[in-house]
């Protein structure tokens, strides 16, 4: 095994991996991850099952979707702690669909992440500049 590192053509392997999914940086996380619509759904009321997801995205997504005025109800649950599955229930008014509400939830969360990054970087840089000045003085 140790010698095998030298024998391989890394460049070629690299590309074959890139071919599978161009933007993906972590194939481990991508494997077997799917969204399923649970039985009994309608346009405006649906339960989605997220495989391999937990409270991290569950609660944040619930918050983002509940912020949508067209959503009447949104909640999440992890039905069993030993199954890595998260269920998300969305019920909306007739002005939208559950699927659209879910997509808007993702969009809003991504916008939020951008703002957090921007403000965090600005605040950190300012803090570093100020403490740098203090050290020089």
């Amino acid at each position, binding site marked *: 095994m140790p010698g095998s*590192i030298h024998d391989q053509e*890394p460049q070629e392997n690299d590309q074959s991996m890139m071919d599978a999914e161009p933007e993906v940086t972590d194939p481990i996380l991508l494997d077997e991850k799917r969204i399923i619509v649970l039985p009994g759904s309608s346009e405006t009321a649906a339960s989605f099952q997220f495989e391999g997801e937990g409270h991290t995205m569950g609660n*944040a997504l619930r918050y983002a979707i509940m912020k*949508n005025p067209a959503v009447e109800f949104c909640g999440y649950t992890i039905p069993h702690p030993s199954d890595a599955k998260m269920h998300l229930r969305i019920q909306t008014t007739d002005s939208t669909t559950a699927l659209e509400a879910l997509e808007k939830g993702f969009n809003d*969360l991504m916008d939020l992440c951008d703002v957090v990054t921007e403000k965090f970087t600005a*605040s950190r840089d300012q803090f570093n500049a100020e403490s740098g000045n203090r050290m020089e003085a």
Partner: protein
Amino acid sequence: MAPLVPSQEELQRRRIIGINPETVTNIPSTDFPGHWPGESHAWALDGFKKNFKVEYHRNDPYEASFSLIGLDAAVANAFRRILMAEIPTLAIEYVFVHNNTSVIQDEVLAQRLGLIPLKGSVEGINWMHWFRKPSEDEEGSSAEGPSDYNTIVLHLDVECTKNPNADEDEQDPRKLYNNAHVYAKDISFHPVGRQEQFFVDDGAIRPVNPDILIAKMRPGQKIEMEMHCVKGIGADHAKFSPVATATYRLLPDIQIERPIIGEDAKKFVKCFPKGVIGLEPVTSEEAARSGSGYEGHAGEQKAVVKDAFNDTVSRECLRHEEFQGKVKLGRVRDHFIFNIESTGQFESDVLFLEAVKVMKLKCARWKRGLHDFMA
């Protein structure tokens, strides 16, 4: 009809979580559409941009402290959870034991090695890909085994020998023998392929702390092993977690509702950590105002809140009869004081930015999955 806008006092009241001797009140967030009749509370990026604030308290390579203000607990908690469990880091995963005659068993030694935090060129670590273990029964699987872009090779070759120059009556095994103690600094890095470009000089892969004790040996004992480091996440094994701790607490809030003066004030100060409550003389102006509770106490010491930030919210003050009804403890719902301690592979402020990035990536990936079944 334009949505109602609640008054500043009302908004401030909603921001405070009440802390009572035995209970906690006003816990859930209520800033959702439909909760308060007539008010909007719909998601608005501009509004969030305006209200969200970051205050930095401390920024060291291994420890950072900052406040995120204007965020919901659901989001702050997501960042914290991602910090601990979902940021990829490098750690020893495979140990090939060529020889181990020390008293510590192979599997125990391997477990200890895995937990040693490593550091090296951040650029190089980010360049690395995941290692996918090739499975034996699956022909032509896409996993390809160790390569320069997914595996770092480390060696540990130490042998304990007698030290011929040691004093005759020497008792310390470290002087009596060579290599009696095996430390993390004895681990050597062997770059392969393109690793030689990334991990040079200061960027070489090495333990964060060179003085971690790995094993103890006596003359004639030997450890020879090769270690393969791969990238992984904390959800898989704690050794991949990039943080020693990642925590947040809510900003404490102390409201003195009725005057606390004289001896009571001194006792009140002692109920809190140093610097949280201060003493100030009652001004003649206050003493002159009727109904203020300070009448006739001009010049006496009164308790004032100096710095609630450092309070531990121990509730000690709520146990004393003399402060009943005079003080209200609480926490600010949307003021999260984060504290991130890095294990050394990345700087702690970079880790937080990384967590936000991972969160965005997760959203993007799930959204893509959504499009697949919409079609």
